């Protein structure tokens, strides 16, 4: 029997730093809720809006798989591995912090905000060599179907990370439905609704709601309106 946990959008933590508005699905920085520590290996899902011309200055990370998915606008990334890149809507970026890296993320646009998802997954191996990966996705490949955008394998679709995790994005028209088969025994899925209304396992979810589902092999997804959503398939024990 599938187990589920519902996280309504309005129950997320929120930090307003003036230049940054961050809605946090799990405990992060000043937001601490013992009941919202993680979903399996998924530790951070921050829904961030960065003001024009602002950003995150140089800061360190280690031992974490960090994925950025821009939703609106462009974000410039610089890191201590000499990577300089701009990620935009339709891209996905993955970074293995491993033994330690520094990076910065800026919205260099002087007029428009940047909205992006910042997702952190616990690695399945500590102290790996830091690495950075970025991919431009074909947006049509998620129209009325699931588009895999991340996996554990360099040879599979999307970017890859050091964890048995898979991400899929979907942009479904109203009344389109599909079945999602969980990728690995012991994994669960955290379904995050980017826009619209979606029914998953009988639960109606609205924009920025999330449903965690585990102890099942598969579940049904139905778009009740035109909708976009992200499925994060991660180990529940790791």
């Amino acid at each position, binding site marked *: 029997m599938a187990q589920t946990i519902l996280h309504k959008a309005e129950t997320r933590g929120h930090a307003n730093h003036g230049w940054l508005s961050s809605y946090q699905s799990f405990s992060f920085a000043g937001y601490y809720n013992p009941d919202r520590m993680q979903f399996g290996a998924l530790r951070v899902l921050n829904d961030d809006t960065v003001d024009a011309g602002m950003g995150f200055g140089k800061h360190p*990370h280690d*031992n974490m798989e960090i994925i950025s998915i821009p939703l609106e606008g462009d974000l410039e990334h610089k890191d201590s591995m000499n990577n300089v890149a701009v990620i935009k809507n339709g891209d996905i970026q993955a970074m293995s912090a491993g033994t330690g890296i520094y990076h910065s993320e800026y919205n260099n646009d002087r007029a428009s905000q940047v909205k992006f998802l910042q997702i952190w997954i*616990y690695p399945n191996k500590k102290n790996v060599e830091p690495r950075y990966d970025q991919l431009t996705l074909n947006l049509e490949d998620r129209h009325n179907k699931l588009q895999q955008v991340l996996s554990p394998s360099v040879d599979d679709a999307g970017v890859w990370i050091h964890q048995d995790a898979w991400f899929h994005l979907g942009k479904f028209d109203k009344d389109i439905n599909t079945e999602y088969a969980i990728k690995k025994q012991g994994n669960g899925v955290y379904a995050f609704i980017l826009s619209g209304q979606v029914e998953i396992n009988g639960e109606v979810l609205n924009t920025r709601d999330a449903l965690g589902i585990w102890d099942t092999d598969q579940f049904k997804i139905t778009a009740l309106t035109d909708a976009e959503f992200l499925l994060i398939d991660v180990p529940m024990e790791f």
Partner: protein
Amino acid sequence: MNQTQILVIGRHPEILATVIRLVNNNPAWNATGCITDEEAISAFDKQTFALVLLGGGIEELSEDQLSAYFTSHNPDIKIVQHYGGGSGLLSAEIYEALG
């Protein structure tokens, strides 16, 4: 005020400095940072710590040996792996460990 003493061990000097700065942002906490196992054991022997944060870069063998040493000398000590490197996870990890 009695501060909670926290021993932070990490191999990357800049990240260690960041973690210490972030821990010390909370006036109820005080961090002592060490890069090597020898420094960590020396610091542990001089002071009573409530919590040890194991940061990035520490080899598995060192982690096991340090953890064994700390718990044998202070069975109540909490030892947690700090992930993320001076990140937004730090406070929650400490709150969780200290109950």
